[in-house]
C-alpha cells in the first residue's frame, strides 16, 4: 500500500509541530507502518523519537539532507520501533538550499528521495520548520497516490493566527505546481494556556474564516506530554495522560484523510 503523507507545519515556532508529528507517528505505528521524517534542522523530532540530543555527531552524514542529495532515502532510515522508522535531521540541514542549488535540485527532490520507500509504509509523517523555505515546501510538494495532507498547527496566539493564511498560501502554491493531490487535513489547536479567555474567540474566528477546517480535538498542553521528551514512550507510567488529547486527534486525522478533504 502506498503511504499517505501528512506534513505538520505553520510559519510560527512553538506551535507543537515536532511533538505533534512525533506523537502522531508513534500512535499510528501501533497498527500501521510509519516513516517519520524530520525536515527541521533543529532536529527536535529526531531527538524526541530517538532520545538522542547530540544529533550533529550521532547522525553525522546520515540525515534527510544526504537522503535528498542522494535522491534515495533508503540508506538514511533508522529503526525506532517495530513499525516506526525515522529519517533524522541535524543542524547541517541549514545547508540544504545552497546544496540544492549547487546540485541543480528542484522542489521535487524530497519526492524523488522518497519514491523508493513509498510502498514500504502506510504513513509518512513529516515535521517542518516554521519558515517559508525548501524544508517546508518540499514535504508539501511530495506527491503520493494515496494522498498528501497538511496539518496546520495553531497555538492560539495572534502570531499564529496571522501565520495560518501564509501557510495556506504555501499549501496552495505546492498544490498548484507540484502536488495536485495535496489537501489540508485541518487546523489543529495546541493551546499553550487552555484557560486563556481569548481561546474561544480564536476558535470562533478560525471557524468563521475557515469553516469545517479546524479539528474538533483541541490539544491542551500538559507537563506529562512535555516530559515525553525526557522519559520516552516505553514503560512510561504517565503515557496515557501524556497522550490524552492526541489519541482522539489521530482518530480524527485518520477519518479526515479517508474522506474528501475540506480545503483551506
Amino acid at each position, binding site marked *: 500500500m502506498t503511504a499517505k503523507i501528512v506534513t505538520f507545519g505553520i510559519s510560527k515556532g512553538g506551535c507543537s509541530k515536532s511533538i505533534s508529528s512525533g506523537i502522531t507517528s508513534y500512535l499510528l505505528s501501533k497498527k500501521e507502518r510509519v516513516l517519520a521524517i524530520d525536515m527541521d534542522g533543529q532536529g527536535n523530532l529526531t531527538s524526541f523519537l530517538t532520545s538522542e540530543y547530540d544529533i550533529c555527531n550521532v547522525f553525522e552524514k546520515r540525515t534527510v539532507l544526504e537522503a535528498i542529495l542522494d535522491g534515495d532515502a533508503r540508506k538514511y532510515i533508522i529503526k525506532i520501533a517495530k513499525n516506526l522508522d525515522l529519517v533524522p535531521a541535524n543542524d547541517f540541514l541549514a545547508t540544504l538550499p545552497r546544496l540544492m*542549488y549547487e546540485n541543480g535540485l528542484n*522542489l521535487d527532490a524530497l519526492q524523488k528521495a522518497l519514491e523508493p520507500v513509498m510502498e514500504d509504509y502506510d504513513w509518512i509523517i513529516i515535521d517542518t520548520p516554521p519558515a*517559508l523555505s525548501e524544508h517546508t515546501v518540499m514535504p508539501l510538494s511530495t506527491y503520493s497516490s494515496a494522498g498528501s495532507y497538511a496539518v496546520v498547527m495553531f497555538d492560539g496566539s495572534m502570531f499564529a493566527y496571522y501565520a495560518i493564511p*501564509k501557510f495556506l*498560501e*504555501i499549501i*496552495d*502554491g505546492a498544490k498548484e505546481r507540484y502536488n495536485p493531490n495535496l489537501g489540508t487535513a485541518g487546523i489543529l489547536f495546541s493551546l499553550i494556556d487552555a484557560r486563556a479567555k481569548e481561546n474561544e474567540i480564536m476558535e470562533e474566528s478560525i471557524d468563521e474564516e475557515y469553516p469545517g477546517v479546524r479539528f474538533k480535538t483541541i490539544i491542551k498542553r500538559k507537563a506529562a506530554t512535555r516530559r515525553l521528551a525526557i522519559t520516552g514512550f516505553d514503560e512510561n507510567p504517565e503515557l496515557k495522560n501524556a497522550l490524552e488529547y492526541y489519541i482522539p486527534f489521530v482518530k480524527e486525522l485518520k477519518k479526515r484523510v479517508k474522506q474528501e478533504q475540506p480545503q483551506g
Partner: protein
Amino acid sequence: MSNKSSLKDKIKKPNATQTFFNSYDNVDVKKEDRKETEIKNNEEDIIKNEDEVASEIYDMNDNNIDNVVDNKNNNDEDDDYLRMLASGNKIKKQKKKKVFTSFYMDPDLAVEVDNIASRGEKGDKSKLINKAIRSLLEQYGVIEKSR
C-alpha cells in the same frame, strides 16, 4: 520592462510564497540556459580542438604577415628617429603596439642602451633593441629585409 507592466507590478505585488516558487522557475530557466550554453561551449570546444592547430598556425602567420607589412611601413621612421635620438636630438613620434618580453643583457650593452634611452622617452629602449635585433636577423637572413 514597459511602463505599463512596471505599474502593474506595483499594483499587484507577488507575495513571499509566489516569489519563492517563482525563484525556482527562474532556476529552471537558468538551468536550461546553462545546459544550452554548456552544449554550445562543448560544440565550440570540439570545433576548436579540430581546428586549433591550424587556426593558431594561421593566426601566427597572419600576425607575421601583418608585422612584416607594419614593420616595413614603420621601419624607416624608426630608423630616422633612432638616428636622431642617438645623436642627441629628440623627435616626437607615435607609439606602436609591442609585445612585452624580458631577457638578460650584457652589462656594458645595458649601460649604453640605458644612456641612449635616458635621452628619449618611454619605449625608446624597446625601439632600439628591436632595431638592433631586426638588423641582425635581416643580416642572418632569418627575416626579410625591410627595404
